[in-house]
């Protein structure tokens, strides 16, 4: 008997790729044109070494970095690891020692040949402690102190790109594009606290080892407000634009072709243990019981989010469905009644600081305060960091957003602990899902981190964009899309010059 193992993909594709059916005669793909992309992030870094695991900005950075750099391996939609810069690989029985043979003849965008030293230097900077990366004949060797059966999942995701550092500190890649122009974020003169949207223009790498991309340029505008992104898409100023979760419904109603990924962002609460009077066990438990995640996901986020009961999502760990977060106001009130009068959350409000940017997260913070009040707990929401120029006072509770970067649940859990549980030395040395489950359960039972909702990524895709085949976990694969001029009559004007789709100006801009 044989089994359908990739129905996962089919189901995900059917569920998350809510693309409008576009009737079009089969036609060969077209080369040329400029793909206009609008992202919400106000700035990105194309240096993977700078990325902070879990940060929202790392999501946009990774999307753009994948235009410029390649990884050793990729994960395809059928759960198979595919050769990329590594043509083949092998490992010992324990999974500690791995050898990767580099593909021959791969060149960086400046024509330089990819060498084992480049791969070693990149991976030494990105893989982190616990790995010894050394050059080997025609490739690299990676050794770990403990079995890393998930190494390929790590190498296929996150910041594990291969690059070459130039003498001036900029990075070169072997990917399908290179950076032609980059306009840095600059303050708006009339309002120094605001920022102009930054622009990054990527140009097709004619000599890309994986094949020249179809479009000539990818023109990326950063820092677009959510509603503006949607409007740009509707009026043809953007071909692809991120859509904020709370605008997805509006976009769908207005006929925008919308794609969504698996949940990539966790919104959660974190108690600050560094305060002089940290929250008591009872307070943490009471707040956990008071949270109404279903309402947050279904009303506040209009069913475009999922209630979260775990740190890792089901699609990544496979065991998240074992966790439950039952709302129990009665029990929460009983716990509250046992507080001493001066305890945080009783007479003295517990300050909740919203660490994630944007109005949506502020609204979620306010919803937390409402839930808390229903259990007679006092929670006061502090302004989001970006909306206030004054120093933000210490808070006992933080609302934060965590972006899942890695396809390895072990790596993700480890990064989560490193970033959010400072001082807790809890390396996750196992890839055994049962051990991961035990560690995650222990963390959740402490009630120091309270998951709220899981958010997918959403993007609007115009009808003139063909072969849009993003992965379920959010890789946009822009090198494979092509534009149909006949469906995109607009002439594009950008700060880099005026050009018409299909006959782009060839800018020989500085390479990264």
């Amino acid at each position, binding site marked *: 008997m*044989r089994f*359908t193992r990739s129905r996962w993909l089919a189901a995900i594709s059917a569920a998350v790729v809510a693309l409008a059916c576009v009737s079009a005669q089969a036609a060969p793909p077209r080369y040329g044109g400029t793909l206009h992309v609008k992202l919400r992030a106000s700035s990105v870094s194309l240096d993977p070494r700078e990325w902070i695991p879990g940060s929202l900005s790392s999501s946009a950075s990774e999307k753009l970095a994948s235009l410029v750099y390649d990884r050793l391996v990729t994960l395809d939609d059928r759960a198979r690891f595919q050769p990329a810069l590594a043509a083949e690989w092998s*490992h010992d029985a324990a999974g500690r020692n791995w050898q990767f043979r580099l593909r021959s003849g791969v060149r960086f965008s400046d024509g330089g040949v990819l060498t084992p030293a480049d791969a070693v230097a990149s991976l030494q900077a990105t893989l982190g402690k616990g790995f010894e990366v050394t050059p080997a004949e025609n490739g690299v060797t990676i050794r770990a102190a403990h079995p890393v059966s998930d190494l390929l999942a790590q190498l296929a995701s996150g910041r594990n790109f291969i690059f070459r550092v130039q003498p001036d500190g900029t990075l070169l890649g072997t990917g399908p594009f290179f950076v032609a122009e980059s306009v840095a974020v600059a303050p708006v003169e009339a309002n120094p606290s605001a920022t102009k949207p930054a622009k990054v223009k990527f140009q097709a790498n004619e000599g890309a080892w994986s094949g020249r991309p179809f479009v000539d340029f990818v023109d990326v505008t950063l820092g677009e407000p959510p509603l503006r992104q949607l409007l740009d898409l509707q009026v043809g100023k953007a071909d692809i634009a991120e859509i904020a979760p709370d605008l997805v419904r509006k976009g769908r109603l207005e006929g925008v072709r919308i794609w969504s990924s698996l949940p990539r962002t966790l919104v959660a609460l974190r108690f600050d243990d560094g305060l002089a009077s940290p929250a008591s066990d009872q307070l943490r438990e009471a707040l956990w019981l008071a949270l109404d995640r279903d309402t947050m996901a279904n009303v506040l986020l209009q069913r475009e989010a999922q209630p979260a009961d775990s740190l890792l999502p089901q699609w990544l760990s496979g065991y998240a469905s074992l966790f439950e977060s039952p709302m129990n106001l009665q029990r929460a009130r009983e716990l509250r009644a046992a507080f001493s009068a001066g305890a945080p959350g009783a007479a003295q409000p517990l300050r909740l600081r919203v660490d994630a940017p944007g109005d949506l997260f502020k609204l979620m913070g306010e919803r937390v305060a409402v839930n808390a009040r229903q259990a007679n707990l006092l929670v006061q929401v502090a302004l989001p960091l970006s909306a206030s120029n004054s120093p933000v006072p210490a808070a006992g509770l933080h609302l934060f957003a965590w972006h899942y970067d890695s396809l390895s649940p072990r790596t993700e859990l480890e990064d989560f602990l490193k970033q959010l549980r400072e001082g807790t030395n809890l390396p996750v040395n196992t890839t055994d899902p049962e051990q991961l489950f035990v560690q995650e359960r222990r963390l959740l039972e402490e009630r120091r981190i309270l998951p709220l909702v899981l958010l997918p990524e959403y993007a609007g895709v115009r009808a003139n964009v063909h072969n849009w085949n993003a992965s379920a976990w959010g890789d946009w694969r822009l090198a494979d899309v092509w534009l149909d001029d006949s469906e995109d009559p607009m002439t594009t004007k950008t700060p880099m010059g005026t050009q018409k789709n299909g006959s782009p100006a060839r800018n020989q801009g500085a390479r990264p």
Partner: protein
Amino acid sequence: MQFCGKTGSKTISKHFRLFWILSSAAAWVMNCCFSLPAMTDDDVLVRETVQKLAERVAAIPGLHGPLRLEWHPDANWSEGEGGHWQGIVRAELEKRALSLTEDAGAPALDLFAAETPAQVVLTAKTRVADRNEVRIVSVARALLSPISPPVAPVRLERQMIYENENRILDALSVGSGAEGGLALLLYKNFEIVALRLDSKGAVRDSVSLSAANLKPSRDPHAELSVRAGLNSVQLSGKVCEFLWEAPAEVKCHGERSASAAKSEWRGDVLLASPCDGSTWKLVNSGSEPNARQVLQVVPGGALPETNAAVLSEFPGPIIGTNRERNPDSALVIARSLRSGNYEIYKITLACGN
């Protein structure tokens, strides 16, 4: 050392072999043959994974049967698939003296099945005394090969004759009868490879076009043809020629800019009705990679929207079509959204449908 790179491609499917062996038999008979169970490495892997879980469950202190097995698969697990896993779980648990029952009052043993991007995760959860016990095992998804999707009854007779996990760019029937087979183009590990398969599906010849220093391309279009024994591959802006007997002597010419896409590809594929000799045309519409696609076969000269069209839905986007040896047949290449594999179908226009 365990070699993992370039994961072995399933170059020859059992379907293909069966097809050619039984090509003289009726297509319906072949359909039945295809659905016969075939022991694969999957069975071993599934059993090993389940055995590991059963061992861990059986070792839970204080756990005694009989238990009521509750199956909680992710939504994407099919009933048949889940049933098979459950059957193995039952057998493996009972081997370890953990009896199972349908009694609703018996303690539950919840079994969860989930797929992550890289793994299949099996979780058993039960309650012993006042504590929850959880046991979890996993297996790499890539080690479990996909199933061929069931062939739905259609008005066009349709038969999947070959599948490959690598992208199939084009396919061509070669020879006839016992000497017949397929020639096809694969895009594998960023190289275009031409394969010639014999009537049993075995690879007779393989020629890599990288021998001609061909640049990789994202353009999935390539067409294979044979003229006077010389094989010709038409690519975007380039033509390569080779002989099966001389795989190292691939010659390519006519290269233009990589962006100069070929504007004209293979023309319409026409079928001749075995009933009255009338001409029917294959109309392949749509090009989105995430959609099932309906192939239309319309009477010659009619518009695609004609009511007379014969429709056949494929399990994913149609990559290409080509003529077959018989005038009432054609080859259709599609990518299955279920398995992700590229599949070659032989479609045949039949009377009386």
